[in-house]
């Protein structure tokens, strides 16, 4: 018992011999992991910096602060009709619409122009076209709206804050080369001069662009365009997708993985679901148009139809991911539950699902995010549209954030295809981050409870 038979020592020696190589392998592997994460994060960082650096300027916007005189000489429409007793609602509405319509026909541009001239230095030479190119064109409607709300304004002068036009905004922000000649400029020379003057004397200020959040889309008045309608449309669709796709997706995954007899038929269903994930999204649009619009007569351009289409599109993602998660649950857990006299349903809902919950959340996030960023399928159900209203219900016409992004980036005005597009992307991303945050919050809470 003095000398050890050398079995063990040779073993150790052999282990040692390969150790360096194995550790190198380990280091490489770990390095690759870090590299992968760094690369992935790097992509995120690059994308974010690009988007944010482009989008940030559009969160600021030039505004004019003008004294507006509601000139009775121009506004000569008489008082607003009142609801007389005995008059039917419909009749009253007709009368007041007529009044408003007549108001709309008035020359509000003249009122705006007067206000500009009043603000300009004495004797500043500017023609009316150039003068009107300073405020955004939609602001005359804003004045009219003010007047409709409050007819007492007639004959009064009030200070009104108006949006400056997109061209003025670009000029003042310097997004357009100031040294270019007249021919290459969007604004006439006197308008540029006046804009600079206004910026100096505080008639034009740079404010936070609330309009971006609270206005609806606008073509005629690029500076007034906002995301409110698209945002609501996206929110509705997201809710529909979450409410429908998640339960249906998880339920079918459960059925296929836990309940369905393993047969040709289930194989077929499995293949079929995997296949659906590869169907180009626009084809779902075709399907949606055929089923939801033409057969079920859902309204066109409505988030309801859009949400349903996106639900169908998201389903495979959620089903596949959930099934993958269910497959990973160790059999001993299932047996423990069944052995306790739990029914299959109870086993699934009490034990298997809680364990797979994080994966299901991940699947949901990815699926919903994908749906949230999708444009093509909306094309065919009329949601790829210019909609100038905030939808009040999921049945109203609406558009969606990615659609807005798509429309804006295709717009010829640089105000849109550069800054606003990026700003819209930022809003979309913010929405997604909120969604993510909620999911993570839920995940951590549920993990704690388990």
């Amino acid at each position, binding site marked *: 018992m003095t000398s050890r038979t050398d079995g063990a020592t040779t073993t150790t020696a052999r282990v040692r011999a390969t150790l360096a190589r194995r550790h190198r392998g380990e280091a490489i592997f770990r390095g690759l992991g870090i590299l992968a994460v760094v690369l992935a994060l790097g992509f995120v960082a690059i994308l974010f910096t690009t988007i944010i650096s482009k989008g940030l300027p559009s969160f600021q916007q030039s505004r004019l602060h003008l004294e507006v005189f509601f000139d009775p000489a121009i506004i000569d429409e008489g008082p607003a009709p009142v609801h007389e007793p005995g008059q039917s609602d419909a009749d009253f509405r007709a009368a007041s619409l007529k009044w408003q319509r007549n108001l709309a026909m008035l020359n509000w541009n003249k009122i705006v122009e007067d206000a500009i001239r009043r603000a300009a230095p004495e004797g500043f030479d500017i023609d009316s076209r150039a003068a009107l190119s300073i405020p955004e064109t939609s602001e005359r409607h804003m004045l009219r709206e003010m007047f409709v709300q409050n007819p007492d304004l007639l004959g009064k002068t009030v200070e009104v804050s108006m949006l400056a036009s997109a061209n003025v905004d670009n000029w003042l922000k310097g997004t357009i080369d100031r040294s270019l000649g007249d021919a290459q*400029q969007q604004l006439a020379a006197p308008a540029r001069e006046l804009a600079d003057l206004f910026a100096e004397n505080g008639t034009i200020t740079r404010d936070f662009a609330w309009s971006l959040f609270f206005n609806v889309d606008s073509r005629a008045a690029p500076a007034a365009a906002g995301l409110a309608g698209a945002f609501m449309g996206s929110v509705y669709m997201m809710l529909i997708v979450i409410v429908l796709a998640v339960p249906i997706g998880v339920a079918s995954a459960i059925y296929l993985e836990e309940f369905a007899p393993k047969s040709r038929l289930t194989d077929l269903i499995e293949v079929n679901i995997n296949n659906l994930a590869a169907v180009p999204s626009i084809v779902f649009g075709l399907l949606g148009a055929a089923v939801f619009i033409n057969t079920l007569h859902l309204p066109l351009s409505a988030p309801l139809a859009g949400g349903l289409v996106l639900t169908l599109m998201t389903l495979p993602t959620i089903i596949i991911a959930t099934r993958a998660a269910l497959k990973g649950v160790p059999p001993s857990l299932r047996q423990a539950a069944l052995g306790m006299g739990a029914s299959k349903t109870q086993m699934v809902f009490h034990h298997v699902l809680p364990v797979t919950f994080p994966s299901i959340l991940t699947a949901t996030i990815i699926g919903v995010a994908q749906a949230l960023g999708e444009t093509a399928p909306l094309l065919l159900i009329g949601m790829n549209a210019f909609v100038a209203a905030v939808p009040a219900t999921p049945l109203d016409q609406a558009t969606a954030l990615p659609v807005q992004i798509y429309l804006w980036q*295709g717009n*010829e005005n*640089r105000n849109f295809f550069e800054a606003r597009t990026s700003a819209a992307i930022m809003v979309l991303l913010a929405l997604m981050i909120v969604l993510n945050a909620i999911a993570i919050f839920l995940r951590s809470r549920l993990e704690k409870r388990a």
Partner: protein
Amino acid sequence: QSRDTIQIAGSSTVLPFASIVAEEFGAAFPEFNTPVVGSGGSSGGLRQFCEGVGENTIDIANASRRIKASEVEACNAAGVNDIREIQIGFDGIVFATSADKGDFALSPVHVYKAIAAKVPVDGEMVDNPYTTWDQIDASLPAQPIALAVPASNHGTREVFQEKVVSAGCEEAGLPEMSEDDMEAACTTFRQDVVVEIAGDYTETLARLQSNPDTVGVFGLSFYEQNRDTLKVATVDGVTPSLETVAAGEYPVSRPLFFYVKGEHIGVIPGIEEYVQFFMSDAMAGNGGTLEGAGMIPQPADKTAEVVSNFENGVSLTASDL
């Protein structure tokens, strides 16, 4: 209750104009909602238009080309019989380069020689040998040839093909060959220097940014809005502008349309008013809002004819086309 918002869809060229009108229409007519204007291309718009009659189909289809006989037939088959055609004006198509590049004075034959896969050299068809513009014509800048042209799904492509390339092809004096071969020779493009753009003009603009030597094809209105970064080329010595196109001097332009579903008039509120508003002087007329947005107005008598046809309920049939 029935739908109370007009539904429009179709060409992305018409989209900006229609959107502006829709918005102004909503502002001017408090009793009507602002119409919803969808994109999806002329084809997509007309497809939806011809889906049938009823609330869940669109009322108006925008198109950057005329409706085709086959489409009218498809429409009729689905019960859409009262198709009213409205021509709204013109769209000019221009060639432009980055603003810091040399001036281009193009003619169709230059473009043909730059773009065709095979060109005649000494009466023989050979693989296109040109690599810079000045090899084609000494008057052009010595700049590598690169072109961004609309892809074949674009209406613009048709115009570009017809009014520029085919015209240039004829001028170039091709050797004798069969009609089919001739056609192929005129329509086959080089793959190396030509990029086909399937998306919007912003995409073309992005191409110009990623390769500054590119000569791109744009809509006139797009160019108007981006004069600081783009420089336009003359074609046959004519500088494209609202005036030259309207006067018919600038050769490359196309008419724009929209189609109204007669069956919906009176059911969906506001369709008639929308059409009249669209065609009013303040919108589509000379000096109107749409001209400011880059649409080239058509002569006033044409507009009057279009409107009276509409009001008289003249509907289009396949045999008209």
